[in-house]
């Protein structure tokens, strides 16, 4: 009852919705970059939304299933294929023993998520399955997935009825809300917004900004017109969050992502709204984005709508799976 990595990808880890309650010790939440797709993959199998999933970057790992299970692939489209036949995203797929999952090329997005019905038997650290690469703990041995890794399954379901006599069987339901590829990303104002000159405030809202090559799980360094400030106070360190847009001394921005440090001392000019972090998490170097300022209350409501959608889908799929 397991799956095996048969080729090492560039950065494939086990993640969940993050590790909370330890930031006062400098331990950051981590977790999936695109939390929506990670939860969607779980919801489509009727699993708990915060269950562990694999986060896959491209070039991706190759995965061999050593026993039958049902999987869902959500998020980026890396043109997945099982036993050399293309398979759809956002659909539960039953796979038999010896099925091989490969990702062939990037169609869209930066990260995809694989949920496995039987669950991955991985390391829980401080209440989360997320891999903390720096602290070398959580997830699969606190490191990226490598060739020869054999990830045991947690549960023992019989899925033969779903599979029938097939090696691969795409189940008949899918998600309606999937990856949004729009380039306009909403944010709310940060506590140092007023430090920006009037021109810089305009530029922030009107200009396009490029995701630079310096963009990873810790943060996206943006490149574009330098934003000027009308004061140069030094801030003492205080908390920073996933989505915080910090202004660096050279006038460029860095957007903190899932593996951000818990605290920082740069001016916080804005924060990406939580409901749009998944959009940003699917952007790659050289993608252009634009920021749109939105009221805090609208941001909260979008997050609640997203959460309700996932919860309802999870319950509906739980009945369909019937395990």
């Amino acid at each position, binding site marked *: 009852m397991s799956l095996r990595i048969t080729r090492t990808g560039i950065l494939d880890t086990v993640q969940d919705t993050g590790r909370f*309650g330890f930031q006062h010790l400098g331990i950051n939440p981590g977790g999936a970059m695109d939390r929506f797709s990670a939860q969607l993959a779980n919801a489509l199998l009727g699993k708990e939304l915060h269950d562990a999933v694999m986060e896959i970057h491209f070039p991706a790992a190759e995965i061999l299933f050593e026993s039958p299970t049902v999987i869902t692939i959500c998020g980026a489209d890396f043109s997945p294929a099982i036993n050399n036949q293309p398979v759809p995203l956002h659909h539960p797929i039953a796979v038999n023993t010896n099925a091989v999952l490969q990702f062939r090329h990037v169609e869209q997005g930066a990260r995809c998520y694989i949920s496995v019905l039987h669950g991955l038997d991985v390391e829980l650290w401080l209440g989360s399955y997320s891999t903390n690469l720096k602290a070398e703990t959580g997830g699969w041995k*606190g490191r990226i997935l490598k060739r020869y890794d054999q990830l045991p399954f947690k549960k023992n379901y019989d899925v033969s009825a779903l599979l029938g006599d097939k090696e691969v069987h795409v189940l008949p339901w899918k998600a309606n809300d999937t990856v949004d590829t729009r380039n306009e990303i909403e944010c709310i104002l940060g506590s140092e917004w007023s430090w920006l000159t009037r021109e810089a405030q305009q530029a922030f809202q009107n200009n396009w900004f490029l995701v630079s090559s310096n963009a990873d799980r810790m943060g996206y360094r943006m490149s574009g017109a330098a934003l000027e400030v009308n004061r140069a106070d030094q801030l003492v360190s*205080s908390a920073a969050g996933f989505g915080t847009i910090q202004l660096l001394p050279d006038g460029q921005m860095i957007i903190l992502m899932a593996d951000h440090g818990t605290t920082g001392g740069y001016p916080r000019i804005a924060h990406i709204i939580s409901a749009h972090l998944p959009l940003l998490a699917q952007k790659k170097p050289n993608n252009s984005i634009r920021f749109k300022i939105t009221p805090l209350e609208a941001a909260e409501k979008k997050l609640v709508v997203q959460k309700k959608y996932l919860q309802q889908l999870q319950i509906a799929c739980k009945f369909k799976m019937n395990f």
Partner: protein
Amino acid sequence: MNIYHPYTIFPLGDGALTIDFGNIISEELNQKVLDFYHHLKNSQHPFITDLIPAYSSLTVLYDVAAIYQHLEGDNSAFETMANIMEGMAVAKHQPEEKKEIIHVPVCYAFDFAPDMEYITREKNMDATDVIRLHTEPLYRVYMLGFLPGFAYMGQVDHRLQLPRKKEPRLHVVAGSVGITGKQTGIYPLQSPGGWQILGRTPLKVFDNQLSDPVLFHPGDTVKFYSISEDEFTDYQNRHS
């Protein structure tokens, strides 16, 4: 006497708020932050998912969906949480009991102190003076951040204060003790870093095998003492 500390509350994104008591490093304000932090931590408020105390601010992460489930009226989740915090920020909270001083051995030998030469040159003093100035004070752990278990301690003697390095090092060895401005700290893990490194401790500041993985906690008192290279090696052998 209960001194009133003015504060501001602002959203840190759409799932957190920061209560800011002023942009300064002061023991009194930091104590206010920590008393407030412990009060909230002990209250186990169902909406609160994480707390981040810093030098002079406390950040509260909350579960927006849970608040909306219980919400009556037109308040946003932020307003709901800000209202809860308003009353508490002014109140005086019972301080946690003072804990024992944590004594930390540091080897200041040149092999472990890549910036010692720069520090002695810049400050026109010899290594013995640097060691004396660094080991004399009782340091307060103001906050943790940057890396798991990285404690921001203060305050460094004014005669030893230096800015951070212009070009950060790509690899600072775990256990390295650094200074910058009024702050001193220990790198818990190998990482890039810009502080001036003047020694190394054989202690494990972060250990992912322990249920409490960090050595230092906000509010702790720390004293460094100097050890030789032999003592450093002995210590490591005894604890490996």
